């Protein structure tokens, strides 16, 4: 009944269908509709229908409309990797992007690095998410002498947590290695690139063996609760750990609740550089979009600095455009935004993307890193006996799906 009434009210109004794999959780979607889209609707006298979808639904829908040469969807929002295998279904946004630049919308340089598909510009950057290291201020006095917290190496990190263990008898470093924790992202997007400059292709190299031996060492001083934790905000707040790594959305509530107790520090550096994962999402317009002009104005609206700031305030997703003032933001959110900005402008960055194009095999990709972790670190086996078997598995996965390797692997000759 509610839906009928809603449709009735909509009658006669122009509609724009916006499908998205981002801002899908109910609270986020509600917030986005009420605070961002409604403003656009008022200004443009159009109703935006925001459809949350998972990766599979998103891809199926776009593909189906493209093949039927007729569609309803005018705007598609998704992760960079969501667009990868369906790039042909979207129009080239090259001219639109240069128009935006003329209107003084300046995107962060890295955000424009990966939006090409066969020479076409397929999406305009929209939101950014990432993972951060957080430390309780109590841990700072145990930092190895002469070390700056924002230019740690992974070895410094090890010395730091080892020092805490030696002085307090407690293991105060934590990782989300529970069943639904994201430790696999730490392995393939942070450690692997930092030690081997790649996520996948150097899977069983000598550098990789060195890396796994490092993880074994680090794990000795990691709180054993890590094997159970799925997100790190709670153990940080209960002070079971002082130092932790996790995705912003899973760690932010600790910082928002007690902003004065925590510091955010840049990812440590390995011998090849500072590996980080950037989760970048973008906005694309399908070839079959019925109202392209409205889609363009909605994109333009969503990348305005003041709207990007609103989204940061409401959801914790970071902006993709420059010159956003963090003043007046909630203290915790401000801290996160500044921390990420500092990390992204750090030296020797190796930016990793979560591989796209694996579709329903995405879960098995992550399982490989988790299984290797259990074999080598938990069961204390020799990396050389484990890695070659899993390397074959991972390469097979990419071949089966015909998926291309994600950055940084795709840039290594």
């Amino acid at each position, binding site marked *: 009944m509610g839906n009928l009434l809603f449709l009735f009210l909509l009658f006669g109004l122009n509609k724009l269908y916006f499908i998205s794999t981002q801002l899908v959780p109910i609270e986020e979607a509600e917030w986005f509709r009420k605070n961002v889209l409604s403003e656009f609707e008022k200004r443009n006298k159009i109703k935006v229908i925001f459809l949350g979808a998972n990766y599979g639904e998103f891809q199926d829908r776009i593909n189906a409309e493209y093949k039927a040469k007729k569609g309803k969807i005018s705007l598609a929002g998704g992760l960079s990797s969501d667009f990868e295998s369906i790039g042909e279904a979207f129009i080239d946004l090259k001219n639109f992007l240069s128009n935006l630049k003329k209107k003084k919308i300046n995107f962060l340089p890295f955000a424009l690095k990966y939006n090409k598909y066969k020479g076409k510009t397929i999406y305009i950057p929209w939101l950014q998410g990432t993972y951060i290291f957080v430390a309780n201020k109590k841990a700072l006095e145990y930092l190895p002498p002469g070390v700056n917290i924002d230019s740690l190496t992974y070895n410094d990190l090890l010395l730091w947590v080892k020092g805490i263990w030696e002085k307090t*008898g*407690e293991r105060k470093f934590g990782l989300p*290695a*529970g*069943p*639904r924790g994201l430790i696999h992202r730490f392995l393939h997007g942070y450690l692997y690139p930092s030690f081997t400059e790649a996520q996948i292709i150097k899977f069983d190299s000598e550098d990789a063996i060195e890396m796994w031996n490092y993880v074994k060492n680090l794990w000795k001083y990691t*709180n*054993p*609760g890590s*094997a*159970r*934790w799925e997100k790190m905000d709670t153990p940080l707040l*209960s002070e*079971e750990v002082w130092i932790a790594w996790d995705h912003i959305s899973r760690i932010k509530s600790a910082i928002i609740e007690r902003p004065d107790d925590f510091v955010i520090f840049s990812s440590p550096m390995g011998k090849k550089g500072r590996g980080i994962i950037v989760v970048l999402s973008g906005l694309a317009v399908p070839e079959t979009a019925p109202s392209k002009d409205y889609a363009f104005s909605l994109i333009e609206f969503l990348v305005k600095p003041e709207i990007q700031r609103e989204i940061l305030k409401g959801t914790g997703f970071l902006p993709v455009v420059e010159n956003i003032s963090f003043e007046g933001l909630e203290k915790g959110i401000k801290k996160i935004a500044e921390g990420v900005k500092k990390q992204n402008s750090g030296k020797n960055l190796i930016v990793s993307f979560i591989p796209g194009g694996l579709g*329903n095999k*995405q*879960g*098995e990709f*992550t*399982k490989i890193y988790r*299984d290797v972790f259990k*074999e080598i670190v*938990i069961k204390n086996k020799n990396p050389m006996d484990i890695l070659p078997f899993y390397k074959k598995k991972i390469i097979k996965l990419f071949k089966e799906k015909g998926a291309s390797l994600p950055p940084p692997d795709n840039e290594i000759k």
Partner: protein
Amino acid sequence: MKLNEKYFPYVLLLPLLLYILLFFFNPFFNALKLAFFDENNKFTLIYFRELLRDPRFFSAIKYTLMFAVTIVPLQLITAFLIALFINRNFKGSKTLLFICSIPLAISDLAAGLIFLSIFTEHGFLNSFFYFLGLIKKPVYFLSYENIPLLFTSILIAEHWRATAIVLIILIAGLQMIEKDYIDAANVFGANFFKRIFYIIIPLLKPSIQSALIIRTLFAFQMFAVVIALAGDMIPVLSGETYFWYYIYRNSHIASCYAVVIIILSLLLTAIYLKFLTYKEPVYENI
């Protein structure tokens, strides 16, 4: 009208039958299909081959069986003792029965979380030991580094959670035993243990059988308590099924796990039925 009477019981059974068809056989056959047929509907064993290559599969079988063989006898003994005690019908025995069956009403995840708050590093048990001055630093009860301790913690939690169902079945069974038998045994001078081993246990066999079947099947479905306390450090079959379905997103391999659970459950139920079936004793010359 006679015809109606003949078919009446079946009409009464129909809703149940429909329910079983819809909610048991339907998913059951779908799981079989997912386990043995690929996307093009062709028969295949590749999913089972992949299952056998999954390093966690054999550990999952191992731990599931270990839980089953430790927890089922333990629960049976505890429940039997409590049932004997409550069955003495003293003042307050009803209240005691009520308290003992509380865990029945608690979901297994909630039970897991309750025990998590007991065993965790800053949990009740550590606080209690600290208060008594037994420890200076928290003990990691739930650490992958000490699998036997972790296993025992899960055993305790699961023991608390699921003994109640066995208890209820056994109490019902005990109440069915006619007092005359016991009185007769008393007259002939049978002591407490003789009464238990020669009268109560043989007469309780049907209840023990149902309790064993239900409990063993439950042991194969053990899942939330293990995940709450051990994460995925102690793999069990149902847990792996869940992970493959929801996290690794491969419904074929998840279904293979489900098929393995079904086969093991059927096998054990058959064994119980064969060896524990209660036969009416034949009394000669009476």
